[in-house]
């Protein structure tokens, strides 16, 4: 995994998020405050403008820079959480110049753990973690099994979609939807949707990459 792949993946995520604008927006309008799409878009726009700055950096430094930048750009609940992911990934990869799949998977797992700590949340609370935690576990497992990328990606996407949809039947105990009690039932968590879209976009971007 090279920084070029990371940057390409970010652009792919940006395109995918923009393509899902109305759905993401309406989810946060339904059980949140309507700004989730705007928050994420703002973060991705700022990252897109940093392409030239990021590309020369080693992956760890790039992740660190991304996390720092997002922390001061997104705000809201998703800002500190997503930036914690990147900051922790940067930390985890500090020793590697070109991390392999295992190292990358471990870094992602560390990133998701950082979200859990920052958000004081875990599986089943109707948050982005319901998509991220299983994804991190899969990544680690697939790296261990050295599953071909295409196969891994197909499984990751399918699982993310399934877990995203499963948040529909959950009552939220963290985040803004927790104020709603039972009224949150029947609505997918917006952060989960964003993460599902992002995971699928990253996979597709990696599949397209020559390396």
């Amino acid at each position, binding site marked *: 995994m090279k920084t070029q792949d990371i940057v390409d993946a970010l652009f792919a995520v940006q395109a995918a998020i923009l393509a899902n604008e109305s759905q993401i*927006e309406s989810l946060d*309008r*339904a*059980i*949140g*405050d*309507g*700004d989730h*799409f*705007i*928050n994420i878009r*703002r973060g991705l726009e700022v990252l897109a403008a940093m392409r030239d700055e990021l590309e020369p950096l080693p992956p760890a430094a790039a992740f660190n820079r991304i996390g720092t930048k997002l*922390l*001061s*750009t*997104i*705000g*809201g*609940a*998703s*800002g*500190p*959480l997503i930036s914690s992911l990147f900051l922790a990934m940067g930390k985890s990869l500090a020793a590697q110049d070109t991390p392999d799949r295992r190292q990358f998977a471990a870094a992602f797992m560390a990133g998701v753990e950082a979200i859990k700590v*920052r*958000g004081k949340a875990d599986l089943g609370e109707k948050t982005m973690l319901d998509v991220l935690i299983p994804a991190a576990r899969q990544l680690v497992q697939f790296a261990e099994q050295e599953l071909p990328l295409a196969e891994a990606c197909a499984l990751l996407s399918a699982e993310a979609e399934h877990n995203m949809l499963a948040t529909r039947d959950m009552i*939220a*105990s*963290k*985040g*803004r939807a*927790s*104020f*709603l*009690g039972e*009224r949150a039932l029947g609505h997918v968590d917006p952060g989960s949707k964003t993460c599902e879209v992002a995971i699928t976009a990253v996979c597709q971007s990696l599949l397209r990459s020559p390396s």
Partner: protein
Amino acid sequence: MKKFVNDVDAMLRESLTGLVEAHPELLRVEFEPTFVARRQVRAGKVALISGGGSGHEPLHAGFVGRGMLDAACPGQVFTSPTPDQMLAAAEAVESGAGVLFIVKNYAGDTMNFQMASEMLPGDNATVLVNDDVAVENSTHTTGRRGVAGTLMVEKMVGAAAEAGATLAECKALGDRVNAATASMGVAFTSCTVPAAGRPTFDIGPDEIEVGVGIHGEPGRRRAAHMPADAIVATLLEAILGDLRPERGRRLLLHVNGFGGTPLMELYLLHHVASRQLRQHGLEPVRSLVGNYTTSLEMAGASLTVTLLDDEFASLWDAPVQTAALRW
């Protein structure tokens, strides 16, 4: 969406500039990162810093000034500000006695302020405001929201800080004011986040949202529209059920408009609420009526009650000189 705006992305900056231009003797504003601070910082006083998503004006920047906040960190509309804003604000107004953050209890606000608090080199503490009784409290969830009662915390702690209270005293006082304060509101219409461009929720012409939040979040339940007496009874039942004041207790009653309700109706609510409180054997002896913790143009209002003792009453009465509150 019809709003007074040029470029949605520049809205916050243009608005904050307008605020400071309207109160040049009182306020200054910085951008990159964004915060509003008192023009004159008093050395040796605990620095009070609050902040949160924009769209609740005059909260918080309108409460920066003598007797209240030292700085406010406005985020994008309904989006908590970021830690770099809080750090820059702290650097600007900290004057040797430490920093007290006053934070409304939302996942985004608490996490961002928490990160700032972790990064801040000097002494600091945080008061979490969670006065909204529409939401059940629980340590296993995000808990109750911070709403219009934040003003009471900022005003009373502001007065104490001005009078020389230490950081620990300010923190303890803030927690006590918060514990003595409860709020709940209803909405008639939705607000429209400028960058989203359309109403956050749909609501029928005869429906009201009971227990609504200040970001257009849904509340406890949808109900049919009711007379003011019934609405007030519903809100006070929840508020008094939480505070459980003994008979004869003196209270501060705050009727807060969400932005789109005429003052005429807010004063009517004040009359109805005072009457019902007295019927409960309680004594509303201080009042504040107006649009203070708003939700953009949402029509609706909340009631806030703070139990008063002599200390709280005199902190409330202490002089204040801010854009939105002065006496």
